[in-house]
């Protein structure tokens, strides 16, 4: 009997030890300096399993289904808010996060709109949604004074008709594109009523024939290779395309602009699912990410701003000094944020999106 008990105790220990050695992270694609993942494993001895996604919807479905098996996930602000309401996350234990003091109060104040008191999440990166262009080709088609920093580039049929032949991609995310269409029409980008959606439909339908594809990650390579001329996408992704094109030295010059009519500012937040298998290791991972140098390395690699004040002294000049990434006070004025769609409005939005994409 005694041997049996000690045997089960050993088993439990082994099982416990095995569990403590693994942390599963689910993050956006192309969103980290991969050498950080190795560094984490070396420093902590915890096995890191790192998976990626490219849409908030996919992540949300996993969170709502439960039992995703992930310890750390990275939803955007509005999605985070809804998932907190659904009871998908656990509160962070700040006593296990000594680097918590590194966070930037300016950003924390804004993310508190989605996560009151920042109890469930920390900011990983934030950025804007705007327009990426293949400078040479767009100027060739639209002339030297092409409106590359205006939503008119993608929502004015006259411009789009000329751009269509060389390819325009839009994010496959109605919560990003519809607010932009509303901003272009001079309406409140956060409006969700039928009238606003009808207006957005009108704007989008007028340019629909000229849009080659709605996709949320393909445009990085497509823009860098010169396959397409214009992409409406996320700031850092387009800046990554710019750098890939420069590295490939293929004659493609990519530029990013936040639209002058106003740009959506979004926040990607790291949170721990309520049923995370290993919350202790999840906290170790969050603390590792909140380290000033690690966070700076991530931002230097992906060209997104982060919510970590202490990291700023380690940022490269082409990151901290670029107003497309760290907007100055005037540019910050021009950014807007949005709130989650309630179920009924969400259905209208998805229906609108299907109609725009498929014509049905």
């Amino acid at each position, binding site marked *: 009997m005694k041997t049996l008990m000690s045997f089960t105790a050993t088993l439990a220990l082994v099982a416990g030890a095995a569990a403590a050695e693994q942390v599963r992270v689910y993050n956006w694609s192309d969103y980290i300096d991969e050498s950080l993942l190795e560094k984490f494993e070396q420093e902590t001895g915890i096995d890191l399993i790192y998976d990626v996604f490219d849409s908030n919807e996919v992540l949300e479905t996993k969170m709502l289904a439960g039992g995703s098996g992930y310890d750390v996930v990275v939803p955007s602000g509005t999605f985070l808010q809804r998932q907190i309401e*659904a009871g998908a996350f656990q509160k962070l234990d700040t006593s296990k996060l000594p680097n918590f003091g590194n966070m930037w109060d300016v950003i924390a104040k804004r993310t508190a709109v989605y996560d009151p008191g920042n109890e469930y999440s920390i900011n990983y990166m934030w950025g804007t949604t705007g327009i990426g262009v293949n400078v040479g080709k767009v100027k060739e088609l639209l002339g030297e004074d092409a409106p590359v920093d205006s939503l008119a580039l993608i929502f004015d049929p006259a411009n789009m008709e000329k751009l269509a032949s060389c*390819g325009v991609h839009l994010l496959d995310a109605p919560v990003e594109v519809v607010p932009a269409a509303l901003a272009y029409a001079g309406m409140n980008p956060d409006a969700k009523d039928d009238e606003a959606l009808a207006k957005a439909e009108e704007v989008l339908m007028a340019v629909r024939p000229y849009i080659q*594809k709605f996709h949320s990650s393909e445009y990085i390579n497509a823009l860098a290779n010169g396959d397409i001329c214009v992409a409406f996408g996320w700031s850092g992704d387009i800046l990554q395309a710019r750098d890939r094109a420069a590295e490939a030295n293929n004659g493609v010059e990519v530029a990013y602009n936040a639209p002058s009519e106003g740009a959506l500012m979004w926040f990607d937040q790291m949170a721990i699912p309520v049923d995370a298998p290993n919350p202790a290791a999840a906290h170790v991972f969050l603390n590792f990410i909140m380290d000033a140098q690690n966070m700076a390395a991530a931002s230097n690699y992906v060209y997104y701003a982060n919510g970590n004040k202490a990291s700023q002294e380690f940022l490269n000049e082409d990151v901290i000094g670029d107003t497309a990434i760290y907007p100055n006070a005037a540019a910050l004025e021009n950014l807007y944020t949005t709130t989650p769609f309630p*179920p009924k409005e969400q259905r209208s939005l998805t229906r609108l999106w299907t109609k725009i994409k498929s014509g*049905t």
Partner: protein
Amino acid sequence: MRRAVLIGIPYLWLVALFLVPFLIVLKISLSDIALARPPYMPQLDLSEGLSGLFAFLAELDFENFVFLTQDSLYWKAYLSSLQIAFTATFITLLVGYPIAYGMARAAQEWRPTLLMLVILPFWTSFLIRVYSWMGILSNEGVLNQLLSWLGVIDAPLQILNTNTAVYIGIVYTYLPFMILPIYSALEKMDESLLEAAEDLGCSRLSAFWLVTLPLSKSGVIAGCFLVFIPTLGEFVIPSLLGGSQTLMIGKILWEEFFSNRDWPVASAVAVILLLILIIPIILFQRNEQKQREAEG
């Protein structure tokens, strides 16, 4: 006793792998969307015994099925899926039959090798094979580069992200399912029947029409069902190769589930898809049975 067990095993299999999952989906399709985990109401609470079960049943309704009839999107998607599945099956048959015929008429010692070549693509992941079609068909892809190098085209052909690419993907992926049953039907054919037909004055072409084709009918039917049934609910091929105008029910299901977080409506879409598929599945079963009886 032994007989009962033998009959019982396949039925148990059907209940566990088909009936139970179907009932779960049916249950969700009758419930309502909610902001919770999982995102629908009501949840079955067995701790309250029978009264809990009755309270649960009272909350279910057919609202989601009514909703599907109110929006033209759904029946258009079903119709469009049916049309794509029919067309793709027909093209697969046109491509597959000559291949199967050639294999069955090839020299005996070559047949195992040819059979092997048909099965060989299965050794590579389906996803990787579809992705390589993206590489072949894209604007800067292999096909367009080859054609412009040959001087056939000036501007790249837009094939990727269109229905043409979807047909290419489906025909490519499901071709072996068409070839194998036709081959097995043709291989069993007694060639002396053809000699007899020619002796009686049939030309080779009419011998094919009057003898070979009818004898391979069972293989053709089996192949068509094996292609049609999975194609109808296909999701991966239209989402990777198709454009945004490609309307298929698999994509609609995905959107209901992921974008709307509306599991009840997604389940209702799935239940109807299943009901549509039951007809060809039963016909397929009949065909198989008839063939077995004919052989037995």
